[in-house]
């Protein structure tokens, strides 16, 4: 990581084979200071106006992103556009239920995103398990594993609901409350413990920068 501030203790990366541990970073995430009030307000305004969604359709909610991207609902109007790589995107849309296998990729992609990053979770199944409350393979609430800014309820949420959700996200960002990244760093150990409880074969670095 490029920051030079003090870093809390290195991560163990126990899931990796010994030979590979040196290839990955062992620094946990850190919290970032906000800039002074006026600059931060300006930046937050720009962040709210340019939301780049990570193009990762994690669940069936992804099917309503297609209409949202195309001419009927046209999210580009609001400065929202899809972006294929986690490095460049700022919004992660969790499209509904997350199976354990997908959750692993969700965690990894989320950690690879550059902050400030925001998470929008779609559908009842991300909120409380929804229809799959008794399934052995889907988690019941996504905010145990990554911080969530906006939930959009429904099964599945309509494109209009998505647009409303994004407007809500914009309001949150402009008000300076979109601090999911710092939240994740602050409660890193808690999140990690939750993730490891569910992902039984943890074979990736503890923090993917």
């Amino acid at each position, binding site marked *: 990581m490029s920051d030079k501030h003090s870093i809390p203790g290195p991560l163990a990366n126990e899931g990796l084979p010994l030979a590979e541990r040196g290839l990955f970073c062992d620094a946990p995430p850190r919290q*970032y200071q906000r800039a002074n009030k006026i600059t931060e307000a300006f930046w937050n305004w720009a962040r709210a*106006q*340019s939301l780049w969604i990570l193009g990762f359709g994690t669940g069936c909610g992804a099917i309503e992103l297609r209409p949202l991207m*195309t001419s009927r609902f046209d999210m*580009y109007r609001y400065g929202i556009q899809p972006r*294929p790589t986690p490095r*460049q995107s700022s919004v992660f849309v969790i499209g509904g239920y997350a199976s354990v296998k997908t959750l692993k990729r969700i965690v990894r992609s989320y950690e690879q995103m550059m902050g400030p990053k925001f998470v929008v979770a779609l559908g009842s199944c991300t909120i409380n398990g929804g229809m799959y409350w008794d399934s052995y393979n889907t988690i019941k609430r996504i905010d145990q594993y990554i911080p969530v800014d906006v939930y959009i309820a429904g099964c599945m949420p309509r494109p209009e609901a998505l647009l409303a959700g994004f407007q809500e996200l914009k309001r949150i960002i402009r008000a300076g409350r979109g601090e999911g990244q710092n939240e994740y760093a602050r409660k890193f150990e808690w999140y990690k413990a939750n993730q490891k409880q569910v992902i039984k074969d943890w074979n990736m670095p503890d923090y993917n920068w």
Partner: protein
Amino acid sequence: MITAILTRVGYALVSLFVITNYGLLLIGSMARISAKVQGRVGQPVWQPYLDIIKSTAKRNSISHGVMFYLGPVFRLAGGVGTYLFIPAVFGSALFRNFSDSGDLLLVMYFIFFGQLGMALGASEGGHPYSAIGVSRGLAQMTAFEVPFALSVIAVAIQYKTLDITAIVAAQQGGFLHWTVATNPVAVVAALIAFLGMSMHNPFSVVIAPQEIPIGPPTEYQSNLLGMLQTNRAIFNGAKLVLYMNLFFGGATSLPVMVIKTFLIYFINVFVGQAFPRLRVDQSIRFFLGAPTVIGVAGVIIALL
């Protein structure tokens, strides 16, 4: 002397500022025009500004070593360098840049310099998509360079100079003096090469999101991405101005430049919306086929 130099530098900076903004607005408005073709409203015209501010305002960024940083720097240097040695507006002190030093060859060198720098930096990112994108980008670049170089040679033969200002000067005095009227064949070759150069469809495989998301800039983020976005605007502007100068009689005032470059860029968008993209082997084969033949024909016509 000092004052003269400072004035020149100041003028160049102003000119650079203007072309950056123009480039950004051009990208924004072209995105809006494409959206119209697709039946959408499209993003706001000023969206590229917001994206750049957003990218710069990112709190953290990661690095993959020194070369990784230098990639966008080289790219930006390539874009700025290209622009600074082209007269943006013929006969204007403010927009002539440093066109009296340096010639067409230097400008061509700068066009490819940025690509190479980007290639070095992106390969350092370690992502396989970056590496594949880079190799595709360089392969396609060598391919479209052939018709482009041929048409530049044709222009150079026709006007018997490599000095861009002189080439523009020779085209003054009405539409019939433009290269597009005197040697249309060379212009056709150059415009086809331009499609490849600006990486719009059907030659966009280098940055194709469906195949290798998204090619060389896969790992670039935050302020480095902001730099790349800025460069995209400058570089686009520079290439457009170069094409305008070489083939469409240059511009004697800013509005004329805006209109001409807008129309040249519009060709890209027009073609880009109507075609899928070619594979890299297909696009190489394409560029080395008909456009090269047309380019050679252009040179022959210029020789006659």
